[in-house]
């Protein structure tokens, strides 16, 4: 297995979606290739970053709805009736 192949199937590997034989080849490459170890760590960090920046407790979801939007939504409902 090459670093290119490793990179190509990394998401499948992390999701445990590779067939057993491919998984073994993947694991062997991972154990022997420091370049890919660094890549995997930064790839996993990327996924975590994406997840936490949108749900971080210090970035609370605004609870308030702009008043003009509330009015527009309720006016839209009246038209439905």
């Amino acid at each position, binding site marked *: 297995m090459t670093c290119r192949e490793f990179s190509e199937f990394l998401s499948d590997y992390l999701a445990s979606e590779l067939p057993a034989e491919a998984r073994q080849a993947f694991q062997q490459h991972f154990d022997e290739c420091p370049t890919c170890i660094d890549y995997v760590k930064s790839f996993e960090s990327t996924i975590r970053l994406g997840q936490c920046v949108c749900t971080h407790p210090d970035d609370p979801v605004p609870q308030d709805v702009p008043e003009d939007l509330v009015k527009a939504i309720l006016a839209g*409902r009246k038209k439905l009736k």
Partner: protein
Amino acid sequence: MLAALRHGREEAFEQLVRLYGGRMLAVARRFLRNEEDARDAVQDAFVSAFKAIDRFAGNSRLSTWLQRIAINAALMKLRSKSRKPETSIDDLLPKFRDDGHPLRAPLPWKEDFDALIQRSEVRALVRERIDQLPEPHRTVLLLRDIEEFDTEHTAKLLGISTAAVKTRLHRARQALRTLLDHHFRGDAA
């Protein structure tokens, strides 16, 4: 509240909008990069919710149900927008030599990662970089990694195959990693 909504009581609808509208707007803003579009999507979402309230079975929480409707409305809005030519994602994917080795070996990222994400400017930067992804890839990343929908549900929402979802998600993660590499690798200032 559900009973009042089903009886068509006006104050219940207003309460619903005030209680959940902010969260729905936040969701719509994630998908739509334009404030006006996000507001339009929330309006459309509430119209859909008002029409369907009798069919809400109560299997999920009302907030989850509304969030899904808001995502659907945002996706509809995305689809209805005139399609701009997307920048290619290829430039953001890792490059390899003919022998399969990387053109440039990746540098390890900073170790104090957990401390970094506590900084609001770092989180803002990551959100900016997510917004730089080409639309089809950004949408799949949001649905799979942030909204945590499974591959099948994502495929259904987007009207594409599960294989396409998997490919787009992987490309999106690779591209986002490239966009963040400059800021997070060990030799970055």
